[in-house]
């Protein structure tokens, strides 16, 4: 019972912290909305797969609130079903690349010497690779339609910048007097890394994770838009945009929403993520946490 109350307390406090920043709270509501849209709504709105030649590029109506596309499919159902992969890939890519960056960056800063030089040389090399052309080439060689595989590849291409940033953070934090005090008190390496250094980087890491997610959304969107990537059941916000673009939806006044609805979905999702970072700062910075 106390355990449940503890969880409820923690949850309530976190919620209050999120609500302390208006922009951040707006971002949080936005994220909840998109998670609901992409993971819950598909249970109620079936994906429209039927072509209707008599309903091509229809304007919004009571039956199809966002109109129809070049095949006469309901755009609303495409938007509802097109979010899941975008969000999952964004989260996986962000999580994997942040994890790699935190591990390698910390090792690099804490061990120093040859290990540090090797990791830094690797990041230099990695940063010199033109990511997007490489992705384009990769897409022609491997079928990138698996969510995990794509996330892994996107993450492997984006860890380097963050690794350098984490390394410099750790380098600065490990010089602090309180880390020296912990060493003097005979605290273990584990304690020093996880209790003294990491908590002071949490807001930075969380915010980096969010920005890695936004980058992943754009990267997959770009690949799909260029036609280098397709998903198995061929639906994602980016796929809808690409089809709208290539099948000429932009030339008709009535099909305006065919391209704008998924564009708005992506843009608003990204905006929510970016706004939410304000609240993350609030959650992880004890200085701002006073009085809660």
């Amino acid at each position, binding site marked *: 019972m106390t355990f449940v109350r503890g969880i409820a307390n923690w949850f309530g406090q976190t919620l209050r912290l999120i609500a302390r920043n208006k922009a951040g709270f707006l971002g949080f509501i936005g994220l909840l909305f998109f998670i609901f849209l992409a993971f819950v709504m598909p249970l109620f709105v079936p994906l429209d797969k039927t072509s209707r030649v008599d309903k091509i590029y229809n304007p919004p109506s009571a039956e199809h609130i966002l109109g129809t596309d070049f095949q006469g499919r309901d755009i609303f159902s495409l938007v509802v079903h097109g979010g899941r992969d975008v969000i999952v890939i964004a989260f996986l890519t962000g999580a994997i690349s942040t994890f790699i960056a935190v591990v390698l960056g910390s090792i690099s800063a804490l061990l120093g010497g040859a290990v540090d030089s090797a990791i830094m040389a690797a990041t230099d090399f990695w940063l010199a690779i033109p990511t997007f052309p490489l992705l384009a080439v990769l897409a022609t060689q491997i079928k990138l339609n698996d969510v995990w595989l794509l996330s892994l590849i996107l993450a492997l291409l984006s860890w380097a910048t963050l690794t350098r940033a984490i390394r410099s953070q750790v380098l600065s934090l490990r010089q*602090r007097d*309180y880390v*020296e*005090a912990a060493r*003097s008190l*005979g605290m273990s390496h584990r304690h020093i890394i996880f209790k003294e250094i990491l*908590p*002071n980087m949490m807001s930075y890491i969380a915010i980096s994770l969010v920005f890695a997610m936004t980058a992943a959304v754009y990267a997959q969107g770009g690949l799909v838009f260029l036609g280098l990537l397709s998903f198995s059941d061929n639906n994602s916000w980016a796929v809808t945009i690409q089809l709208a673009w290539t099948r000429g939806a932009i030339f008709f006044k009535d099909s305006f929403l065919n391209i704008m609805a998924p564009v708005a979905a992506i843009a608003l999702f990204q905006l929510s993520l970016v706004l939410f970072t304000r609240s993350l700062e609030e959650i992880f910075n004890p*200085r701002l*946490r006073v009085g809660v």
Partner: protein
Amino acid sequence: MTVNATPIIELDRVSRVFEQRRRQVKAVDAVSLAVQEGEVVCLVGESGCGKTTTGKMIAGLIHPSGGEVRYAGKNIWAMSKDEFRRYRLAVQLIHQDPYASLNPAHTVYGIMSAPLLQHGIVANHKQARERVRDLLRTVDLTPPDDFLDKYPHQLSGGQRQRVSVARALTVSPKVIVADEAVSMVDVSIRVSLLNMLSRLKRDLGVTFIFITHDLAVAKHFAWEGRIAVMYLGRMIEIGRTPQIINHPQHPYTRALLSAIPEADPRITRTKERLQLRSLDIPSLLNIPSGCSFHPRCPLFEAGLCEVSVPPLADVGDGTRVACHVVARERAKEVVA
């Protein structure tokens, strides 16, 4: 002071050189010091004279580049893992800046319970809370329950410094190296902080190595102990506090003492004013030859002072001075 007992801390010609873009900075140069258990020694000197580096070498946080640091007779860098762990806990450092020495992410309880739990000094959080309460009372943070769940940024400078002292006490140290422990707090708080430290010294029998740039503080804190004066990485005078304060020998110590402002104008008028030849402190990158004080020294003798480094010579009354001229004059007095 019993001379034959093994000193708890002993520095044997300890040096530390920092590399800076292929240039070498000699922060500490062949400093020797023996501290007996229960003693108070003040390291005094202006900023950049190597006092903090010396303190950190005593606490085992910086490796000396020459010489040996010994704890209870054993070189700390040649100790077994277990011995080193015991030494590490027995010698605690209190940092100068109470705003940087407490982790902003943890509460006072979190900061203080970590070492208690890590070293098995207490068995669980309940005991840890009790112990932390006791320690907070020891450093005059009462009632302790007002402080347990506060974050460092919610405390004043003086309160933070007390927490940082209490944290050092969690591992029951035998030696505390206090690095300018009172210089960053308000003057009004300073005296009560010093009195608290004096009480710890008395009640717990802790050996104190007190690092300060302020001779008035040294006088207040270490009247029964010794003062060691450092200049540009070298120890230039060491002796019992009353001797150093009342009869300073080295011209640098005399200059430092004459610079202390006095509240009583009559004292100020009669006070010896020592005129230095130069007020600029030489750069550590370019330490003067011979006695490093010679470009500023009023007793400077050409052909002697800039040629050889003066050794610490015994001049009686338990005072040792590194000055060619003073040592010679005192030796004459003894002969006469």
